[in-house]
């Protein structure tokens, strides 16, 4: 398996303190596969997504894409490789410029990076729209004339316009109805196999993550607490947070009633995270060492990494 890139990101700074949004996070995404990043609000997963494309600048760390550390590139060089790294955003309403037609939105990447215009551009846009299941005749319409699911398709068309290698998908279906979500997930799957894409799929929805991912990284307040293949995460979750998360998901099956692991307290703020292991304040298996020392993410099995003192003991 070709390793695509390892990523290390550092602390995110604010002048009055540190919002430790992404705190020394390392992972790699295998080529042609999907890494799902899951966690609740404030865990840093969206920040991770934005860091990878350098939409925001990392405080420290490396992002190695196709052998090059993109953190070291200047704006000019960054622009050249940007076509390989694209992003699909959560809110199809705010991620599309309401004053641009669909043709402009989907055609812009080609125009900027490849200088395509006129009839050529129209043709390319047509192909892209068909590819995502939209009617090319609608290319002169504006985003507000489309439904949520259709707008998300426009966002996807824009993202694949330059044949990227890696696609970051930040909660691409969270704002959509269930039946529309199914359509979009199927589309993404189709595109992934047709175009040999690699996905970094960010979501808080465990069922969606399970459906799309090959590997899953679970995040909690700026850190990855567990990273393993999809099967392992669901069959053998080792980190107490992963276990609690899995037990609290509402499954559309009235007979499925797992033992709910109650978590006391609320998610701590990334501005002032707890000492030692960030989860220790809510962890049912917490020990004295958990309060003093931060656990490291260590391998515990076949491609299975966990950051937990109780597990690594």
């Amino acid at each position, binding site marked *: 398996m070709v390793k695509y890139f390892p990523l290390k990101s550092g602390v995110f700074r604010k002048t009055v303190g540190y919002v430790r949004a992404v705190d020394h996070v390392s992972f790699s995404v295998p080529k042609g596969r999907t890494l799902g990043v899951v966690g609740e609000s404030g865990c840093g997963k969206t920040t991770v997504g934005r860091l990878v494309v350098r939409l925001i600048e990392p405080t420290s760390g490396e992002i190695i894409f196709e052998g090059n550390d993109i953190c070291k590139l200047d704006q000019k060089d960054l622009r050249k490789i940007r076509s390989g790294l694209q992003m699909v955003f959560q809110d199809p309403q705010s991620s599309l410029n309401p004053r641009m037609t669909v043709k402009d939105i989907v055609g812009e990447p080609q125009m900027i990076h490849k200088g395509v215009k006129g009839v050529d551009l129209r043709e390319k846009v047509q192909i892209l729209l068909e590819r995502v299941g939209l009617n090319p005749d609608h290319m002169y319409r504006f985003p507000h004339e489309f439904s949520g699911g259709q707008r998300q398709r426009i966002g996807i068309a824009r993202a694949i316009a330059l044949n990227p290698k890696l696609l970051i998908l930040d909660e691409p279906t969270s704002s959509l109805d*269930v039946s*529309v979500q199914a359509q979009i997930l199927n589309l993404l799957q189709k595109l992934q196999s047709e175009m040999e894409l690699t996905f970094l799929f960010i979501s808080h929805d465990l069922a969606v993550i399970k459906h799309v991912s090959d590997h899953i990284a679970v995040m909690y307040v700026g850190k990855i607490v567990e990273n393993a293949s999809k099967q392992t995460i669901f069959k053998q979750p080792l980190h107490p947070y992963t276990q609690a998360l899995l037990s609290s*998901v*509402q*499954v*559309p099956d009235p007979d*499925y009633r797992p033992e709910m692991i109650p978590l006391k307290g609320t998610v701590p703020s990334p501005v002032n995270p707890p000492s030692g292991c960030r989860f220790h304040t809510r962890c049912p298996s917490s020990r004295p060492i958990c309060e003093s020392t931060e656990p490291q993410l260590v391998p515990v099995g076949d491609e299975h990494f966990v950051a937990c003192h109780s597990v690594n003991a």
Partner: protein
Amino acid sequence: MKGATRTLLTIRNLRVDFYTYAGVVKALNGINLEMIKGETLGLVGETGCGKSVTARAITLLVPAPGKITGGAIWYGGDNLVTKSEEAIRHIRGRKISMVFQDPMTYLNPLYTIGEQIAEVIMLHQDVNTLLLDEKISEIRRKLEASDLSEDERDRLTKQLGAMKEKPPRFSKSARKKRALSRVIEVLRMVNMPDPEKVVNEYPHELSGGMRQRAIIAMALSCNPDLLIADEPTTALDVTIRAQILELLMQLKQRLNMTILLITHDMGTVARTCDRVAVMYAGNIVELAETRILFKNPRHPYTVGLLKSIPKLVEETRELTSIPGSVPDLINPPSGCRFHPRCGFAHTICSEEEPQMIEIEPAHYVMCHACGKPSYFQKMN
């Protein structure tokens, strides 16, 4: 549908239209629903199906340009649709209470939690009588003391008599103080951490889960018969969501309430509801006990909906999606509103609106095909 003395609320042929510039949106197409006392009834559907409009209609809070244009809502022997705003105000918030989706939108950022919940209590409950009753009980308790002198006994008895003849009016500050202690009681009931501190805090100082608990406390402060919860946990994280749903179920038992839970999340429904009504484009298309709905869905929309959800416990290769999209309700499809997307549509489906049929005991479907035996062959 069979009515019973155990029925709390009955909706009969309710129609709601929205008069917009683009045209009349026929949001609710004559729905029928009965709520049984003590049950948790789930109302599920996707965007635009009319579930929130139904919630708003029951409390007579349909926002302009919407209007109830037909039907009735029977509660306590009265048709709420015909009652005055004055009369409704006594019911809304007191007998029928609401919890909405985004707590930040429904909490006033300029007032403390304590002030906001106390306002509800002071509005709907006669705090004066509460204080009076407590005072009378106090005097009675004192009278029972064995070591009371004659004079004392006389004095207390006179005081009691005076109170009963001419009940005093307690000061506003006394009433407010009593209301606030009731607020702390209710906050404790919803497992709010540190209620004495929270009453003096502002909404922005609380976490999402705590705000939702505050809203629930507000809704339950007057011991309503019916609680309408419109997506009460959608804006919350998964682990908090589980806590809040658990809380609602416990409170329902404790306070002997009925809950109408509105959501688009089938997982929530499976875990908390006794019966489920599935809505599509302004109609209730299927109604059954939760287990039956999930194990034996009949309406093609319900079947499609359940199939399109990624499953946590099974493997799914590809998700089945329902072709097409939700119809425009200004010009809804003729006949059955689902027919353009339905794999089982017959000619009659585009011509005639189907009626609600009871296909097995307590399992209702609004579908032409479902009533016919040949349908079952096609399904398998």
